[in-house]
């Protein structure tokens, strides 16, 4: 005889596995600090490339002014401006990375806990 409650539980577990795939389990393998650190490192690389592209656009657009300034004003001042801009951008971008990864980890662990609870219930059936 088919046990309806057991079928319901197994269906819920399978739907979770099929819809979410491996990703929640991959995230669940990390400690919170490791997961956030990993995201911050990738964020640092992505942010640096993004800033370089943005700066490249700006430099091409202001090419004439930039060349003129390089000739008249001291080079150090321009480099200082670029570094300060980069620092401000990275602080903002890495803050967003931190908040997003922290939220994602918290949400995934919560859903994994419910999944594991249901799995344990099934094992003890």
């Amino acid at each position, binding site marked *: 005889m088919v046990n309806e409650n057991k079928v319901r539980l*197994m269906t819920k577990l399978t739907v979770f596995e099929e819809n979410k795939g491996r990703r929640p389990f991959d995230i669940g393998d990390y400690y919170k600090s490791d997961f956030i650190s990993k995201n911050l490192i990738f964020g640092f690389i992505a942010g640096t490339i993004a800033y370089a592209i943005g700066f490249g656009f700006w430099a091409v657009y202001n090419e004439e002014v930039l060349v003129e300034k390089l000739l008249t004003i001291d080079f150090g001042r321009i480099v200082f401006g670029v570094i300060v801009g980069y620092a401000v951008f990275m602080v903002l971008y890495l803050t967003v990375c931190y908040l997003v990864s922290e939220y994602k980890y918290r949400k995934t662990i919560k859903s994994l806990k419910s999944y594991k609870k249901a799995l344990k219930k099934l094992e003890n059936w």
Partner: protein
Amino acid sequence: MDNLFEIKTRIVTFVEKYETYVKPASRFVLMLTAYLMVYFNISYYSKINVIFIPIILSVACALLPLSLGSVVLGLYTAANLYGLGIEIAGVFLALLILTYLLYFRFTRDKGMLLVLSPVANFIGVPYALPVITGLQYQPASSVGVLMGTVIFGFLKGIKANADLLLASEDLKTTKLHIAVEQIIANKEMWLILGAFFFTSVIVYFIRRLAIKNSWRIAIVSGIVVQLLIILIGKLLLGNPYGIVGLMIGSIVSGLICLIFRFFAFDLDYQRIEHVQFEDENYYYYVKAVPKVLIPVKDVKVKTFNETKVKREEGIEEEIAKEFDIDPKHLKNNKDINE
């Protein structure tokens, strides 16, 4: 109104039933529109200027996830821009990389917004997207719409300067400058980006308020605020052209948002799930159907006023019985009070 709800249920039931076909078909329509938009407007590279290419790519993208489909579409667009010069294609690719670095790292499943945004801009109803984003997702998701708008603004600018770009064949720096100018110096595009982001935030916060008709209020407020920002911005920039188009676009976008609300509000689009598993005794092939939909024919309309009147009549009879008076007397008094 009941008929409308019945139509809604029928449509949703149909989509749920034939989801396997409806999803790729809708993806195909969206991707085909985007590919044809590129083909008919910016196909500058003669070697790939064949109608079969966008059609074949649309079919392929219909079978891929939308995020991957948007990458393929981006590469096809870059290949077309290569006809104007490697600098133009390079700037476009840099723009794509920027989008993926800043946005898709966080939300991989919202590739649809990036494709939908230029298409909606091209049709003339881009004002619906920030509102729908605010209704359905979090304000951060509007970045997809914003990047789509940047890409559209860039392509529009390149198309407008195509003759100049083809004429300046030997001047690489000029081409590069013109291409970057379409992004940085396009003040109207930056105005629209600001308006879109602000609209998404406003709509998101209003629809979350615990008030009646929060979704409707959010839609109307979003459309009005967006219209005002763009209108004032245009006047400040000294570019009053296209105001009639803006008004019409906003009205049509408002209607699109209301239709979207009708289908999306208070409806959990859970899918019908087909799952297979086994235990020690059986193999199970389960079809799990979500409970959210009421069968069309079983809808019963209950008038609550009738119950209230009956209940009031019952109370009158009880009071009359308790105080040993004629119930008609109470009814007469009620008529006088009314």
